[in-house]
């Protein structure tokens, strides 16, 4: 069944199996996606909430940012569902 985990007789100490490679790829893809998402949210919420940068973040800027992040996550869900719920 699993032809990749047969004991190596060549003495090579490579420990990577295709499963390891696939796991590593999945992790890296997830990380790349998360970083891109983060960058997008930063841009959107900076535009919406920090209109006149002061010498520190005000309380209203703070709560705007929190709401903005929540709304953006919600918007992602709405768009995602709309794309796959085409009932025509």
């Amino acid at each position, binding site marked *: 069944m699993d032809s990749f985990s047969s004991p190596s007789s060549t003495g090579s100490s490579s420990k990577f199996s*295709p499963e390891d490679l696939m796991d590593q790829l*999945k992790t890296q893809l997830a990380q790349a996606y998360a970083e891109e998402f983060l960058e997008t949210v930063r841009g959107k919420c900076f535009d919406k909430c920090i209109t006149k940068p002061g010498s520190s973040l005000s309380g209203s800027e703070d709560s705007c940012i929190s709401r903005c992040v929540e*709304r953006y996550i919600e*918007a992602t869900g709405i768009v995602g569902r709309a794309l796959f719920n085409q009932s025509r």
Partner: protein
Amino acid sequence: MDSSALNSPELQRFLNQEKEKAMVSEMIGKLTSACWDKCITGTPGSKFSSSESTCLANCAQRYMDMSLIIMKRLQQ
């Protein structure tokens, strides 16, 4: 792992699946960004108004409609 394992059909299938998933994620990302700009015009509230959430859903679906029209047009 010797190099012949890189050609395994299992790995190919996995790569194709991940590629497709990545393309879907990218589409959702770009669409959400564009539709946010179109639909969320004011300061974000503690929930979306119904017009905001309707706009977001409409935006995504109209984008897909448009995409279809463009493809048909380019095929003529």
